[in-house]
């Protein structure tokens, strides 16, 4: 097919537009990465001199280290609980009809619509009303509620694509329901479960708004610690934290991608 001048114009303007949009997407992180190596405490572009001292500062500021440990703990517990509860619910949702199924599903999916600040406020009020301490478990509960819809969705999709014949073949060979679950269903769903769990962990690691409502000084997560830092100091330490933060998340993402192609998780393949 011969290309007309108009086709060439469209091709080139499309490419330029694409480059500009991708630049817009990547710009903030590139700028923050440059800023993190800026020697001066006041931001300048381009930086006049370079230094790693803000990275050193990150490790001296205790809140970040504690926040990171809290965040990792909360993300790990939150993801595991959300995975167990979410996978169980997705299985039940996929396999059985029972009364109140719709109601249960509606409640569990509602965090997709309810703003995070409302969820945070709700659990804060609830724990205050029940005189529960603002412990780490309160934060974990909030995170489980927020990430569970994503886990349910991803496991449910895996179950829908699951070939029921495998289970029937196993049954015909004498395997009871529990044996089928352990030897056939779970092994075949493992990639989906692992990626769903890691996805939940990343979402939990990133959660900020609802956490802000329910944490205290002792349980604050890394994003909350970072937020509090920005409110008090204006130096580029936070730029350095951001770079480290992004590297941690990128590592988690790469693991997900290894197990399960992202295109598949997001249904755009």
């Amino acid at each position: 097919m011969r290309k007309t001048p108009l086709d060439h114009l469209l091709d080139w303007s499309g490419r330029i537009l694409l480059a500009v949009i991708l630049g817009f997407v990547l710009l903030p992180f590139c700028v923050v990465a440059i800023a993190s190596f800026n020697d001066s405490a006041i931001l300048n572009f381009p930086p006049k001199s370079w230094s790693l001292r803000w990275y050193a500062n990150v490790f001296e500021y205790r809140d970040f280290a504690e926040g990171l440990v809290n965040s990792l703990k909360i993300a790990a517990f939150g993801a595991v609980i959300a995975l167990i509860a979410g996978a169980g619910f997705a299985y039940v949702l996929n396999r059985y009809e029972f009364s109140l199924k719709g109601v249960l599903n509606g409640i569990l999916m509602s965090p997709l619509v309810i703003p995070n600040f409302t969820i945070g406020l709700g659990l804060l009020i609830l724990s205050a009303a029940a005189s529960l301490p603002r412990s780490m478990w309160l934060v974990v509960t909030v995170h489980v509620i927020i990430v569970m819809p994503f886990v349910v969705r991803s496991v449910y999709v895996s179950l829908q694509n699951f070939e029921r014949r495998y289970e029937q073949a196993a049954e015909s060979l004498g395997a009871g329901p529990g044996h089928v679950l352990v030897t056939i269903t779970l092994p075949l769903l493992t990639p989906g479960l692992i990626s769903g769990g890691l996805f939940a962990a990343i979402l939990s690691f990133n959660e900020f708004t609802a956490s802000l409502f329910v944490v205290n000084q002792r349980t604050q997560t890394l994003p909350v610690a970072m937020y509090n830092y920005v409110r008090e100091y204006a130096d580029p330490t936070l730029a350095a934290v951001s770079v480290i933060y992004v590297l941690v998340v990128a590592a988690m993402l790469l693991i997900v991608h290894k197990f399960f192609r992202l295109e598949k998780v997001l249904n755009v393949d």
Partner: protein
Amino acid sequence: MSTEPAARDHPAVQIDGVSKSFSGAVALEPVWLKIRRGEFLTLLGPSGCGKTTLLNLIAGFLEADRGELFINRDLVTQVPPHQREIGIVFQNYALFPHMNVAQNVAYGLRTRKVPKAEAEQRVREALALVKLEDFADRRPRQLSGGQQQRVALARALVIRPRVLLLDEPFSALDRNLRTAMQVELKEIQSRLGLTTVFVTHDQGEALSMSDRIAVMSRGRIRQIGSPTEIYDQPQNEFVSTFVGDANLFDARLVGVDGARASLTVGGTPVMLDTYQDALPAPGPVTLFVRPEHCTLAQAGAPGAIPASVALSVYQGSYAELHLDCPSAGGADRRVMLRVPSRQALPPGTAVAIALPASGPAIYAKQTTKATA
């Protein structure tokens, strides 16, 4: 597989009035069926006829709404699939992708807690039976379609099932392989004397492999019998058209005398011997004749039905003659018959069709054509 002599007297599978609906839609009308020990029984019918539903009921993947099901005299209606001791081969084989061939075959032995040494021995034997001894360590996706099917068969046979169920097992194979696998399966089945229920929509497969065929449509068994009975003596219009080709003639039933029926076809009087259990009342009827039972006659021959050649299709050793015939049933008023290719005739030739003295089926004329 019990070997007590008395066991030979009762059916391997007995289905007593089993029926099934899905959310109000009837998938299977009440069915009564006895499958004999060692028999190869085929459930044949178009998609949606209820054959797969019946198979799933026998396997226990579905629960019957009504009726009882026995395997070797044991009532199994309420027994879950994993306690029924049936072997099943699925259309896509459903080999466990996370296990190798040997593990797949050993699966049913592990669930039965068969001792390790014995299990290994039986897996080896089963793989030898399907000629796959050298493939024990392969993963299912590393095998060809035919090899996958053999693994599925070995996996089903190794547990020594009371009944073997085959759910369209050949439909994923290409034509040549399909024929080879049919022969192989049939050999293994008769050597082991295995009671087998085979589900297919392919009449060729059904006719070549079965001891008996149950032709199904719309949730009912329309006829059950040996392949010859089904092909040569169909009892109703559905079986006549679904199994094999049929030429239809508009006719009028004048009278019946014992097994002899007198009719007129487009004004031509015809006498026929009939095998049917029941004949329709005198009046307009449709005559079903297999193409190979129709012969060409001279135009104007007595008892022959006039027609003219519309088209001749060369098929190698024979030719198909498509004839325009005013007495033919069906919308296009065509009749097809096969002649040796050197006897093919040019279009426009006036001919006549001679009907066989016995064989044609006579059914009451229906306003709408019977479908699945």
